[in-house]
């Protein structure tokens, strides 16, 4: 039922639109505009300097028969499939460890969060040293501690993605902080009640911690997948997509096409496919969430 607005509410509404107008203008000009434009360009042959030439769905056709498109999709999915669950599991474990009543919690929290504040390029340069097959600290330790001859890491087609996954764990500090906040929000009486019922630590973790943390896990899962599909800096700085396309991430391939090969039309088509992929994945996760995410406030499961 629609109710008539009071004059006061009307005035407030006007103020609302007036006050958010800069944001709306910014969104329309700097975000929505380019998005619509890129949809148009994706149907054009466009080299940025010459006016776009409409070619219909040719860019999308080309994409299907472009081995590098499939390669970049494969590389990105591989990275995403391993790095996201691994990152979530590891940061949850560390968060739980940090959630014990230990001395110097704030110190540990700071230490684990610290890597997240260092900029991507600096981190990338640092890890290039760590991964160097002949002089890097990683292979040095592998040899000294286990007598294992380490792989060529960034210079090996097989090991470059595992290397970048290991490196991605460097940034889990952000998730740890979120999990820690979530863990601290779980009421202790739930654990106490479980203890009275004779539950052991594993049961408590499985039946209390996980369900209570599931909204947070949902959030980090979605953000993790979106971020992993947008990996760029590491590949751009460290490997340039190599060796032999083994680390040609999807966004790097878009960048190459747009700003190095000046196939802006093709790059726009690639971007729209990426958008659809992320949209579908997010949609699926959301659709599946009633099965595994528990919201305290809704009380239905």
């Amino acid at each position, binding site marked *: 039922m629609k109710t008539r607005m009071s004059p006061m509410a009307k005035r407030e509404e006007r*103020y609302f639109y007036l006050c958010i107008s800069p944001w709306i203008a910014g969104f329309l000009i700097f975000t929505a505009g380019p998005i619509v434009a890129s949809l148009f360009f994706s149907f054009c042959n466009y080299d940025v300097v010459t006016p776009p030439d409409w070619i219909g769905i040719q860019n999308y056709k080309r994409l299907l028969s472009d081995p590098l498109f499939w390669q970049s999709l494969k590389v990105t999915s591989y990275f995403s499939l391993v790095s996201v669950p691994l990152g979530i599991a590891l940061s949850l474990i560390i968060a739980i460890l940090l959630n014990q009543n230990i001395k110097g919690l704030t110190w540990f929290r700071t230490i684990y969060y610290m890597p997240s504040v260092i900029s991507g390029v600096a981190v990338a340069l640092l890890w290039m040293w760590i991964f160097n097959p002949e002089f890097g600290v990683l292979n040095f330790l592998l040899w000294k501690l286990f007598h294992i001859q380490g792989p060529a890491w960034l210079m090996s087609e097989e090991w470059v993605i595992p290397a970048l996954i290991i490196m991605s764990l460097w940034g889990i500090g952000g998730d740890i902080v979120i999990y820690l906040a979530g863990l601290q929000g779980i009421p202790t009486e739930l654990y106490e009640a479980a203890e009275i019922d004779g539950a052991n630590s594993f049961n408590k973790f499985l039946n209390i911690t996980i369900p209570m943390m599931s909204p947070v896990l949902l959030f980090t899962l979605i953000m993790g997948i979106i971020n992993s599909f947008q990996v760029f800096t590491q590949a751009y700085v460290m490997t340039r997509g190599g*060796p032999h396309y083994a680390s040609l991430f999807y966004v790097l391939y878009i960048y190459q096409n747009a700003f190095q090969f000046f196939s802006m039309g093709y790059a726009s088509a690639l971007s729209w496919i990426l958008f659809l992929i992320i949209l579908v994945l997010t949609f699926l996760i959301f659709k599946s969430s009633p099965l595994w995410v528990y919201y305290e406030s809704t009380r239905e499961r």
Partner: protein
Amino acid sequence: MVRRFRGMCFLVVLVIASVILSSLVTSLSYAEKAKVTILWRDDPDEVPVLDEIIKDFNSTHPNITVEAIVVPYDEYDPKLFSMWAAGTPPDIFWCAAESGYVDHAIRDMNFTLDTLVNRDKNVINIKDFYPAAIEGATFRGDLKGLPFAQAYTAIFYNATLFDDAGIKYPTTNWTDKNWTWDKLVGIAKKLTKDINGDGKIDQYGLLDTRDLFEMAWAWGGDMFDPNVYKGYPPEKLTLDKPKNYNALLTALQKRVDLVYKDKVSPTPATQQVIEQMGPPLKTGRLGMVISGDWSIWGAMPKNYKWGIGAVPYSVPNVKKVCLYTDPLEIARTSKHPNEAWEFIKYLASPSAQKKLMEKTSRISSRQSLRKNYIEKISPLMVNTKQGLDQVLSGAFKYCQEDAEHTVFGFYKLQSVWTSETDPLWLGKKGVKEVLDTMIVKVNQAIEENLKGIVVK
């Protein structure tokens, strides 16, 4: 309440109006002065000199204001192209990054300068420029830019390491028949050393950084049709001709041998470490580098002596190395092309080029300034002044302009062949296998490039 709302609306309108008004006033005050923008890369040596030259120019040309837009190397092309798309191109630009003047010319981005050069021939004295430099700015017979600096290819070496090993320095004579690839590898072997005796090589004899097309040239072949270098888009690689194919095949095998058979060049992993320490030659871990003269740009470490030599014959009677020309271009859609030309003339004048050469490590495109360049670098080098002059004569004689500047869509082709040859340098695959796949892939990229030319 209503009044307050009106008041707020009024305030918003007032702010917007004042912004518009103030920008109007500024643009009006600039109206009688032509503003010329020049897009430059953020080279720490070049930018201060450029600023100085601009300042001099602005003070002697009251009707023109030149302004430099400086961006990082990686952003040069994206900036150029996006400024173009926005309808505000820089009036002057050059091939500072990956796209060459031919890429620009095919997209109709630059003016032809022949008429202007002819009109001002007394000031410009085009004969003073290296003929190769003028050729390196010519597109299908039209001059598309005025060169302001060059880079040349030679052998740059660490003379101290030669002294320690008791070896004679490489010759400066480009036509010395005895100066062959095998001789070079022989010297490189003597310079390769495990200094601390840990079983790992610490000092390498040679690093050859030449790209594939240069390797093909050196071994008597070519990856492209001669017309391609004049500005006609390639339709396929010319590696289907046995002569060209075999030249590149041999060249690649020789390069792989440097690393895995002769063991005088670092593996990609070691090379990465060396490059992280600084420009490879300056780290003191390399005896010789075949590259553009950027190997000796900037300050040279004082604990070593340095030298320059001629590139050897890879096959008898064939000698072709890369020359890199930086021509200043005027944007086709510039609002002030005449003023932009005034500044280009100024920047290409002997006095400005002399200044640029003295404060940076770049060699001028003007032949008359070669003696100044030699004066400048000879204190750093073990070579005699005659020796340096001999090296430079050869470097500018046996040269052809960098394919990155003259071949349409070069960067895409290069990135394909760089990726395709990765397994080769890593010692994972054989030369023939890699080369055969590479040819197919590069030809596909060539086709995509051709389709990418927007029909008007």
